[in-house]
């Protein structure tokens, strides 16, 4: 190959790169550059203000994570959040999609209604939910009316994270529902007919035809869900006014990264190390998921 490089080929590749250069430039400047810089930061003790200094510290920032109680709490909260939210939103999305696909009356209307939460920005949703979660808010009034116990949703460390979970399941499930809906309409009717001839009831049809057929989509939904939930930030940030409180109960890994990067001075390097660690965790979780589902036909 190398010997056959002619002038013409040089010119061709040259012009190709010339045309690619704006895109490459943007990619390098805004995507590759920051990633490389973040990795660089992760191995340094950084002071950005005043007398800027970068001191190489090797793996110190990473070993520090192991001794950081708050990092452990943040990771534990995030894991708890992922483990509960991902299955819940996936199942809810599937059920919603299945009901919408069943040919009921007013299907279109419900499709729109269900999809609405996805259209609102998460910051606005969080603020609205904070009103509803308020001690004298809508949710407590409803709970009281039906004789259930009320909670201090925002101030009680035991329920604050659950409050965010409920809100997030409600707001992200519709997004995945739409993906499921598209996949559902792809399932050939002949499969259902065959199942019917074999005497399958509605539940058996759903479990033995719909669910297996949707496996690649489920895999996609779970991976996107994993990545999204691991990166939980804005909701807990708004909920706790940036503190991760009450009592560290809404502290997530990304919120902790934010705190180290911007709230305390001189810990930018440690924040970068945390971000790097989170990226690796997400990578592992995604790989595990792919290994377990073994369905890669969709992506």
């Amino acid at each position, binding site marked *: 190959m*190398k010997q056959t490089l002619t002038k013409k080929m040089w010119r061709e590749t040259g012009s190709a790169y010339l045309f690619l250069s704006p895109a490459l430039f943007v990619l390098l400047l805004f995507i590759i550059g920051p990633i490389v810089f973040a990795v660089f930061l992760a191995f340094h003790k950084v002071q*950005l*203000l*005043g007398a800027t200094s970068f001191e190489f510290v090797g793996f110190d920032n990473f070993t520090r994570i192991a001794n950081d109680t708050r990092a452990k709490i943040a990771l534990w909260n995030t894991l708890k959040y992922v483990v509960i939210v991902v299955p819940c939103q996936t199942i809810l999305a599937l059920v919603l999609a299945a009901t919408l696909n069943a040919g009921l009356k007013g299907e279109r209307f419900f499709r729109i209604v269900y999809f609405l939460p996805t259209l609102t920005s998460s910051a606005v949703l969080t603020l609205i939910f904070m009103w509803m979660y308020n001690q004298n808010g809508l949710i407590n009034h409803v709970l009281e009316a039906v004789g259930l116990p009320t909670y201090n949703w925002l101030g009680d*460390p035991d329920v604050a994270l659950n409050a965010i979970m409920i809100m997030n399941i409600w707001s992200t499930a519709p997004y995945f529902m739409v993906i499921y809906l598209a996949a559902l309409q792809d399932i050939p009717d002949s499969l259902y007919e065959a199942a019917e001839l074999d005497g399958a009831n509605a539940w058996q049809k759903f479990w033995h035809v719909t669910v297996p057929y949707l496996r690649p989509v489920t895999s996609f939904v779970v991976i996107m869900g994993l990545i999204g939930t691991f990166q939980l930030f804005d909701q807990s940030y708004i909920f706790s006014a940036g503190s991760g409180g*009450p*009592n560290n109960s809404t502290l997530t890994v990304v919120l902790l990264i934010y705190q180290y990067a911007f*709230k305390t001075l*001189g*810990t930018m390097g440690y924040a970068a190390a945390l971000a790097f660690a989170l990226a690796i965790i997400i990578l592992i979780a995604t790989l595990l998921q792919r290994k377990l589902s073994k369905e890669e036909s969709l992506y």
Partner: protein
Amino acid sequence: MGKTKWMATLGITTLLFGSLLTGCGGGEEAKQANGDSKQGEKVEVTLAGWGGNPSEQKLLQQTLDDFEKTHPNIKVKYEVIADQYMDVIKTRLAGGQGPDVFYLDAFEAPALIETGALEPLDKYVTDEFDIDDFEKPMLDAFKGKDGKIYGFPKDYSTLALFYNKKMFEEAGLEVPKTWDELREVAKKLTKGKDVYGFGVAPELARLYYIAESKGGKVVTDNKASFADPKVVGALQPIVDMHVKDKSAAQPNEVGATWGGEMFGQGKAAMVIEGNWAIPFLQDTFPDVEFGTAEIPMINGKKATMAYTVAYVMNKDSQKKEAAWKLISYLTGKEGMKTWTSKGYALPTRKSVAAELGFDKDPLRAPLVAGAPYATVWQNGTNLPIIVNNFNNQFISAFLGERPLADALKEAEKTANSEIENR
């Protein structure tokens, strides 16, 4: 093929670095262009701060207009950073785009001074500026370890006890003079879950003076030391009021966002707030009749908190002369008088305070009276870390989930390990 790719990468990298270098070069040029102003040339100084309420903004604008009138060569560009003020300021300073003059809370001052991002102001000070006129604790809050002054306090606020006159009258109670009396009074004023006797903000910024009232220290040698039994003992009554007496609550338990709102809504008969609550209550809840008193004595001693904010100068500023003129006007006798004339915050200059006579204003007198014995909300460079950990664990004790001593012990451990790792 491999070779071409390599070449291209090299090319792009050069391009990238080239652009970075030109970026820096731009800064150099700007430096020359903006250098010391010649006669008749207008200099624009940027001033950044957080926004207050509209009436406060109007006052500041008026002060700035006066300044521009007396200094025709200088134009002030005022920028409001509405949210996450310190994050924005830090990011802008790190990026070399910091404002020339900006607000700095005493709480954040030591850490920022330590980085060297601020300009020491001693060399600019003239006799005319009359530095001895400032309340000393407020001025000391902005001194660096090197003894230099990095900012001049523009105003301050102290805490006082706000009480609902009507509720006290109905219950036939006197305003408490000691903390024990407060606890008793709070019990009598509490009406189940509708009205709490005392509204508490369970955070260190508001509890610091109480925590240290029995001789314990929250911070020792720039490290957390609040697990000290003396500190625990001093804070225990607050926790007991919430857990045992059920006579105290935090604002979010009644659906309010802060003490002033809780008090205004009539859900707390007493709160401890600063002078910012006075105009708020008068505007938002005009029907609530309230009085203020000095904070009840703890251990036979008077105590309160003082919060202060200064104007500081960016070390990288290209217009330091003009920036100083602005600072010296705003914190000077004339500017400070205009700025504090409506009583949103209290003047840090003794002469201005005397002139405005806030010590005779019935609502503000207890606040002014607190200034000499107030604890300034600041302590070393690690206070932000210490506060974060304290608040996080204190709340669980406040909610009765575990003993205060345990909670504070764990918080202290976490805070100190974070400090050691810094």
